[in-house]
């Protein structure tokens, strides 16, 4: 029984990283309607920056905290630059073009990372304090995962409040539907878009920085995270932060439980979930019907 509980909890912690990354994507995708393939690249770059920062600051707590601040900021700056210099120029064209533009960016970033950090894969140590585990009904559960769960929940709450309750959030939603009209009401729409894109990138960066000490940092992690993030966004309902949370947890937990029940399906798991959700509830679990 505790096995199952631990299994679920580890699913939740994995889901949280996914959620943090996907929440950024759901903002960008849902709010700006940009299918941002480069989101995975943001994640990857943040992981590599984390590697550099922790190496320079030493493996301990200061290095970890510094990377948690610096890596997402670097990526946010990268995101802002991409939005202002590139995406903005094709804003008025068909959304397909944003898709290939961001796809091109993923390629450029992938090799850019190679140029800066080389082809080797890397590892970032966890700070001593978070290295161990706590005990849950006698079974060990890594304390780092507890931290992940807490941060994920905080982000979820903050984002939700921002979108649903604030005027900023509402303006954002209006701007998606009709940017020109919102502009005619006195809102600086380009700035708004840049802001959202930057925030989305920052979230991807935060996810990357948080994930770095748990996994390995390698070329190609952009690829796997982007598909999973899109899946989370769609499963949860495009544009819905709570949906992204639910989607990420569903994927995390079902995967954790799923491999106990049907291990052979693990490789296709996420797509089975996607098919099921899209067929039964096309607008996503918490999405609004168009």
């Amino acid at each position: 029984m505790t096995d199952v509980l631990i299994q679920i909890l580890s699913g939740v912690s994995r889901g949280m990283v996914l959620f943090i990354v996907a929440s950024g994507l759901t903002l960008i995708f849902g709010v700006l309607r940009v299918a941002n393939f480069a989101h995975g690249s943001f994640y990857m770059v943040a992981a590599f920056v984390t590697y550099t920062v922790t190496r320079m600051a030493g493996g301990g707590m200061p290095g970890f905290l510094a990377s948690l601040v610096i890596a997402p900021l670097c990526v946010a700056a990268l995101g802002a630059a991409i939005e202002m210099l590139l995406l903005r120029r094709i804003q008025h064209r068909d959304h397909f073009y944003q898709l290939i533009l961001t796809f091109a960016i993923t390629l450029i970033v992938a090799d850019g990372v190679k140029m800066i950090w080389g082809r080797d894969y890397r590892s970032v140590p966890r700070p001593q304090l978070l290295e161990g585990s706590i005990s849950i009904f006698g079974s060990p559960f890594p304390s780092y995962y507890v931290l992940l769960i807490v941060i994920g929940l905080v982000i979820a709450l903050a984002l939700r409040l921002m979108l649903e309750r604030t005027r900023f959030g509402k303006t954002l939603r209006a701007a998606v539907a009709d940017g020109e009209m919102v502009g005619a009401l006195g809102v600086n729409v380009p700035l708004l878009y840049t802001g959202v894109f930057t925030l989305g990138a920052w979230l991807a960066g935060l996810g990357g920085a948080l994930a770095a000490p748990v996994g390995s940092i390698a070329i190609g992690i952009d690829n796997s995270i982007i598909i999973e993030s899109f899946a989370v966004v769609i499963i949860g309902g495009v544009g819905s932060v709570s949906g992204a949370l639910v989607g990420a947890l569903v994927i995390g937990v079902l995967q954790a439980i799923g491999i106990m029940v049907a291990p052979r399906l693990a490789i296709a798991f996420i797509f089975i979930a996607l098919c099921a959700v899209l067929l039964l509830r096309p607008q996503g679990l918490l999405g609004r019907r168009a």
Partner: protein
Amino acid sequence: MGWRREAAPLLVLLATMAALPFLVGESDVYLANDFLITALFAMSFNLLLGQAGMLSFGHAAFYGLGAYTVALLYSKLGVPIVPGILAAPLVAGVMALAIGFFVVRLEGMYFAMLSLSFAQLIFSVVSSWYSFTGGDNGLPVSPPDWLLPTNAYYYFTLAVVSVCIGLLFLVRRSTFGAALAAIRENPQRAAYLGLNVRVYQLAAFVLAGALAGVAGSLRSPLQQMAFPSLLYWTQSADPVLMTLAGGVGAFIGPIVGAALFVLLTFVVTSHTDYPLFAFGAVVLVLVLFLPKGIVGTVEGWWDRRRAKPAPATPPQAAHAAAQQEGSRP
């Protein structure tokens, strides 16, 4: 747009491709063969995107199924390549019918994601069913001796691809094609004009799937292997990129896109240490500076050059302006 204008470049291209083996070396013919297959793949995709407005992100599934149909028939039943290539569109088409039945219920990005998911499911089956498909290292195919020489297989491909593209040409200009265009523009309106939108979309999906199957079936004898990576999602991204880079709106857009991509991939992976960077940079420039894709932009430029100067100010406007001047307070 007149049909001559669309057909002319096709015929020029066909003539060039037919003459190619006399002009260039074996390796280039091989590359051209690669291009022909890729072009058909992209063209079949553009029946969905360009004509019907359906952004499928799982088109590689049908491409890969075509490739595996040939390989499986060959290695399991000993069926030679040519009948295999005839069977491929049937297998891919039937699969497209089954998947299409579900996916055409959705629109836009949801449609894209569902087609992606189905494709990935097929991919996982193909790549992990070792005993049947050979798993991730692929399934070998040996073309018969008469198809083994590079030129022989090249002409074979050219013939098949020409027929398929001819078919697509007819479909695009058909009444069916016109209905797809209307559905792309405004599906709701199309339904209220009496079109059964889902059925038309499904038909397009099946046709595109079958033709992608043909492209795939030509691929495995060329590589002498069918690989699961032919069904992977990154492979599905290829026709999207090619089509958009070449020009969605133009019939030969995907062909141009395919030529560019095949060549570019080859060049960057031969000559640079950072091929993705070079490739991405080229795509980036294309997107930023050629808003309608290569073909669309060239056409626009051509039209503007040939257009007569637009009629200037309408007569009474000039007069009105003058009157304005006088009456200003």
